[in-house]
């Protein structure tokens, strides 16, 4: 039985002439253990779909059954509880609370569940251990790099042991190395049996997915299964593909545009490997740009 089943779900915003259809009778069923990527242009309804699946939002029409339970008409309170217990959210902008430490951030969902303080700290520490950031437990979010912050956010999403993780462009604010770190982590979590949904603009990242959804103007235009480790067939068409040179290139979510210009890739490699030579490297790049003009 599918863990998520949407039955002709629509979401409308606004009234009268200004009505905006964010989702147009979308039907979708997702099985437990799927690792699904969602792609599509901005404004196509990806985020709305994620919000409805994640119980942050209610569909205007249509039915939604989550783990076999109809949830489209739940009260705000019950939705909050179901959300807390079954869904973990990861956002593009991390959304950690700046005034709480990393540990407190991770423990927050447990606090809302009513777990005692000591047990909360213990579970949160375990989760940080799992994402490899136990030594950052008492840092504040602004003391972390983007990749670390996103890993903390993932730890927070996981701490309640939810069966579904929803990540809305989790790598949108990250560089390629951090993107890879985050995706590897999600992929790790996927292996333990969680269902994961993620939104991305980067075709490269469909390598991690088992299924890819393409959306346009509030409808699902294409839905395909794809083997893990390969870029989804349709996504590949959207990619300005250049043969990749290293294993790193293969796995990392390096953006397509970056790859389209070969010499910039080399430059990027130079700057990341030789940190001491950062300044000269930058200078040369400026010179080059100037030279082109």
């Amino acid at each position: 039985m599918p863990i998520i089943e949407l039955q002709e779900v629509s979401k409308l915003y606004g009234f009268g002439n200004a009505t905006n259809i964010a989702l147009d009778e979308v039907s979708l069923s997702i099985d437990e253990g799927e690792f699904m990527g969602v792609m599509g242009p901005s404004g196509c309804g990806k985020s709305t779909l994620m919000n409805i699946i994640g119980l942050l939002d209610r569909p205007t029409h249509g039915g939604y059954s989550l783990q076999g339970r109809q949830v489209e008409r739940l009260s705000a309170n019950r939705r909050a509880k179901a959300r807390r217990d079954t869904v973990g959210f990861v956002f593009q902008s991390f959304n950690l609370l700046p005034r709480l430490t990393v540990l407190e951030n991770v423990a927050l969902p447990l606090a809302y569940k009513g777990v005692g303080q000591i047990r909360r700290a213990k579970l949160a520490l375990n989760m940080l251990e799992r994402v490899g950031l136990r030594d950052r437990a008492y840092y504040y979010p602004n003391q972390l790099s983007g990749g670390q912050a996103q890993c903390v956010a993932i730890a927070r999403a996981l701490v309640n042991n939810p069966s579904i993780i929803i990540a809305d462009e989790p790598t949108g604010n990250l560089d390629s190395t951090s993107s890879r770190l985050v995706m590897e982590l999600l992929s790790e979590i996927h292996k333990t049996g969680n269902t994961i949904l993620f939104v991305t603009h980067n075709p490269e990242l469909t390598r991690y997915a088992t299924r890819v959804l393409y959306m346009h103007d509030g409808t699902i235009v294409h839905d395909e299964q794809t083997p893990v480790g390969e870029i989804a067939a349709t996504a590949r068409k959207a990619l300005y593909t250049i043969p990749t040179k290293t294993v790193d290139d293969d796995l990392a979510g390096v953006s397509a545009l970056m790859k389209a210009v070969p010499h910039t890739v080399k430059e990027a490699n130079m700057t990341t490997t030789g940190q001491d030579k950062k300044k000269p490297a930058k200078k040369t790049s400026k010179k080059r740009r100037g030279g082109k003009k």
Partner: protein
Amino acid sequence: MTSGRGNFKMALASVRNTKWRSLLTMLGVIIGIVSVVTIVGIGEGVKHQVATQADHFGKDLITVRPGKIHSAVNKQVITNSDVLFGRNSSSGLTIQDVEAVKKADHVTQVAPLGTISGLPMFDGRKIDNIQAYATGSDLASILNHKVEYGSFFTGDPNTKDVVIGANVAMKLFNERVPLGQTFVFRGQSMMVRGMFEPFHASPLSPTAGFDDAIFMPYQLADQLSNGGLQFYSILAKPTDHKQAKQAISSVQQQMDKVRGGADSDFSVLDSKSSIAIGGATVDVIATFITVVAVIALLVGGIGIMNIMLLSVTERMHEIGIRKAIGATNRQILSQFMLEAAVLSGVGGVLGVVTSFFLAWFLRTYTDYQPIITWQPVVIATLISVAVGVIFGTAPAVKAARKDPIEALRHE
């Protein structure tokens, strides 16, 4: 439900993180609390002082005052008189009244008290801030107060001798013990015959200002004011404790004779009702000021509401995050309510601390002796928390009802 302690910590942290703003917000509450606690404290202090002083004067002291006593809501208040102990009353007591009281049975000593305007002049200089009183030769023994140097003037109606309060010596004569010195008051030369021990009286007590006073025989004062002298009070002492009641009724009778019965515009009080009236007067004043203080608290509450509304708007994104990771509406509500309560509660505590400091200050540097009892402290703190809860509700409800997606979009 979230654990209360964790929530409380979070609320405290939030208050700490916006120290300046929180302090300014709390200011309204602090001012309200300080005024309530201090005013009640001063009131209690004055009542206490009046009571101890009355003990000091002797339990059976009889006081005649102008004005009738009216009972209102269990409290006796003298109308037609200055709120503070009847001084400067318009329809004062006269020398005839003094003579009447003297005639009463079972009364040994009688001393009127009245003020007479004018400034003393010594060595060609007029000195401000010295009040002249007209009184009788029995004042010292009635007040049970020691004349430290020299002696009190005699009952001789023609004497030009006066007694001075402790501060007058340096102020007027620039001398420690100016016995035998003469000065001029309203063109009349007078001689210092005695000097009182310091009174150390609180500003609201009957002997307030006596340290800065000149006491002259009322016969002399009457001459100076061309027979228009009036008294705000006549003090009398019964022969002994047993005769106290008869003495009072006798004084009443004699006064009735002079004043002509029914529409009598005076009151004869024993020391107990004297104190009660003093206390009632203080209570009336304290109530008025407390009302003002409560308004200050109300304004403080509105300030809290305002800042909480601002805080909710500012932290909309945070609310969105909290909701996304599973906070229910009620949990958000309680978070913001608690924050408002902590804000005003901390304000209340700061207010109480400030009032203790203020009380210490008043004790040390003024004659007020405020007594802070636990009741106003507890009540004030509870009220401040209640203010926070009441005025924190609207913003908290606003936060709790916010749609999570809208809140998340808010930056």
